[in-house]
């Protein structure tokens, strides 16, 4: 069996924050991974490939929001065979993806790692200590939701059951939730009567997912939304001791990263939603 030529080495690694919005929240992780591979090719980004019989592009994902869950903060890492301006990659990749899969931020992995053929997958994932979620419950009044949240937060532990790949598992959902509040302002300006919850949930094993928390809310307060909740991950990152909110997990790369060009700074400053900024912090408190 003939072997192909040795693959070109990775010379630059980029961390990418992307969003899945609107109807594209119904994409599965596999759907996204195919879409990204194709977008990378369409955009002409010099992605590195693994060697071997069936070469695969070097794109790795840090977790993934479930099918049906929207997200403003998903992360992937891509290995390139040539150095590229991250701002340009952000624009090109975003243009090549279908609307709704949007590239929010691209940051080069800090200088010390450039040239490493082996991505150290663990390192970045470890920064993603928790997620901030927004859960919109249509047809639920803010008062009912507030009561349920209060009961939930007051409880010492709340055991729920979920069918996982390893069978039916029973675990506590309360401990993972470091903050949970009602966003009354957002609910009032919504197009239909609803309650909007915002919460910070630590990543743990087994993972506590928004639907587990809804199960918990039903258990402690009989909160039963009449239609499926609209769940959005707003942010992922390290838990901040000061505010209880989340820090940007890409900041450590930015601080020591390669020069990424003025465009990148501008684009970031203008477009990147800041999960911990003043606009959203009111709903998240420790």
């Amino acid at each position, binding site marked *: 069996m003939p072997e192909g030529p040795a693959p070109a080495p990775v010379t630059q690694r980029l961390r990418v924050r992307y969003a899945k919005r609107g*109807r594209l929240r119904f994409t599965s992780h596999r*759907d996204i991974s195919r879409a990204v591979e194709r977008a990378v090719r369409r955009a002409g980004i010099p992605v590195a490939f693994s060697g071997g019989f069936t070469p695969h592009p070097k794109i790795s994902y840090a977790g993934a929001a479930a099918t049906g869950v929207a997200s403003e903060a998903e992360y992937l890492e891509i290995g390139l065979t040539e150095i590229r301006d991250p701002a340009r990659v952000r624009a090109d990749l975003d243009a090549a993806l279908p609307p709704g899969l949007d590239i929010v931020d691209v940051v080069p992995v800090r200088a010390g790692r450039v040239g490493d053929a082996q991505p150290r997958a663990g390192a970045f994932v470890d920064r993603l200590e928790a997620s901030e979620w927004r859960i919109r419950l249509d047809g639920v009044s803010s008062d009912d939701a507030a009561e349920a949240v209060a009961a939930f937060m007051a409880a010492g532990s709340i055991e729920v059951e979920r069918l996982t790949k390893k069978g039916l598992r029973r675990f506590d959902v309360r401990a993972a939730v470091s903050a949970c509040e009602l966003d009354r302002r957002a609910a009032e300006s919504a197009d239909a009567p609803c309650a909007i919850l915002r919460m910070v949930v630590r990543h743990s094993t087994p993972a506590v997912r928004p639907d587990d928390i809804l199960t918990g809310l039903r258990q402690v307060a009989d909160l039963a939304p009449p239609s499926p909740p609209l769940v959005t991950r707003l942010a992922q990152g390290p838990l901040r001791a000061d505010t209880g909110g989340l820090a940007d997990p890409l900041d450590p790369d930015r601080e020591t990263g390669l020069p990424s060009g003025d465009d990148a700074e501008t684009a970031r400053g203008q477009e990147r939603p800041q999960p911990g900024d003043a606009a959203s912090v009111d709903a998240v408190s420790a």
Partner: protein
Amino acid sequence: MPVESIFPRLEPLLPSVQKPIQYVGGELNSQVKDWDEAEVRWALMYPDAYEVGLPNQGVQILYEILNERDGVLAERTYSVWPDMEAVMREHGIPQFTVDAHRPVAAFDVLGVSFSTELGYTNLLTALDLAGVPPTAADRTDDHPIVIAGGHAAFNPEPIADFVDAAVLGDGEEIALAITEVIREWKAEGGPGGRDELLLRLAASGGVYVPRFYDVTYLPDGRIQRVAPNRPGVPWRIEKHTVMDLDQWPYPKKPLVPLAETVHERFSVEIFRGCTRGCRFCQAGMITRPVRERSITTIGAMVDQGLKESGFQEVGLLSLSSADHSEIGDVAKGLADRYEGTNTSLSLPSTRVDAFNITLANEFSRGGRRSGLTFAPEGGSERMRKVINKMVTEDDLIRTVTTAYENGWRQVKLYFMCGLPTEEDEDVLAIADMAKRVIRAGREATGRKDIRCTVSIGGFVPKPHTPFQWAAQCDHETVDRRLRALKDALRGDKEYGRAIGLRYHDGQPSIVEGLLSRGDRRVGKIIRAVWEDGGRFDGWSEHFSYERWTTAAEKALADEPVDLAWYTVRERDEVEVLPWDHLDAGLDREWLWQDWQDAVDETEVEDCRWTPCYDCGVCPTMGTEIQIGPTGRKLLPLSVV
């Protein structure tokens, strides 16, 4: 009048269905045109699940051609899975398009592409969900015109009650011609309503409108005649043939789905038609003559298609791709162009000869190497003479030996079971052939890990082929022969473990046979099956043979015919066949002669390289074979 999107009502329900992404649209290169600016609006349907329907070339080509025109809008719709159907019925959501989620009933035309007859029940589901009466006669001026196309439309009689019209052959030009007729009729204010529009379409000669033809039957159940029932309607309806494929280089912007689909590649048709003359092959008969796309157009289409889609694989489609007169240059040119880019090339339909290995070697230069498939179709030399598959066992052994010598470890061999005149030993010969293949591979390489997979399909006699008169083999016989073949392979100590066997049981083929050669009376069976819950008959997990036999018994209780009459009965030369008024260009006498030659085990050469044998297509249709070589080369593209 604006037509509202049903998406806001659909969206909250999506979390409760399997693979919701298939219902949301938003594919790369999909289009949403302004509703009110369009004068003619097409809904294009592929009557199977999204994952099967989305890659369909026919739908993608028409979608693009129609949307390119000013004042014309085309959107797509696919069959929804039963879980979604239940949700839609519960919440009153109509059949919708995935592009702008508009209700199908709001369109002027619903064009349905039938690659297989097993999609007929899915048509009824879609019509019913759309709020369009399943019976064409019950529709009013407010309902879309339902037009069937695709290969199965060469005998649309079983669905004659459900469709308003059917179109035979290549869709590019006729879809635009139909659009013009509708545009004019609408501009005039729709004079005469639906009936007048259908009459205008029928009078053009290129559109079959079943309601304008009466079928009468003989006391024994055979058809007496099919005749127009009003003036201005032609006696025969001809198929459409696009003569210059270079003028129709579609798809230019292939649809790239988010959902996983059955073909994840960019496909380019490198030619249409086939004159190899395999007697079982309906596609080869009804798509004549051969029309090649030029090497330069192929090269440009591949380049543009890959850029527009980001696909990693290119498929060179046709009925026998290695037969393109410049396939060697195409293969080498593309392999050169995409070397080092991790782009793989595939040639889905190939013939059995050593040249294929050369091609396959070119195609796998990029590193990826898919399996090699050959289709001897018949296990014995005699069987292959009957079906006019001119491959000797020695040819095959030479070819696979070359393949194994070139590094392939596995080949796939495709056969059919239940062919006309077939005996048990013809099927058992497949086992001998497979063993010889393994032996040749082991000798050529000195290795033990040589494998071959034998894949077997049930033969179904199809309209417009020499086997249209043949008795279909009953499913008990097919199953018995396949069991015997399985025993012969499994019991072999030396080779058994190196040979894989894939086959399906014979019952679905009987239903496909009923639908393929059925007449208008079969419509009652289809409706009864659908009413009994029949959906997705092409999927084994949804197919129920019993449902079909029960429905057939009930629906045909007052008729002198039954399921067996439609399937396992041989027809004689003078019998009027349900599709005799539909003209694929093939001369009926030639087809009959070819059927007699089949029984006599006489082969017919390919007319591309030997003199014309008068199948009738070219003179009838005013067409001719269009093959190269053009002598041009596929130039490497400049790097951008």
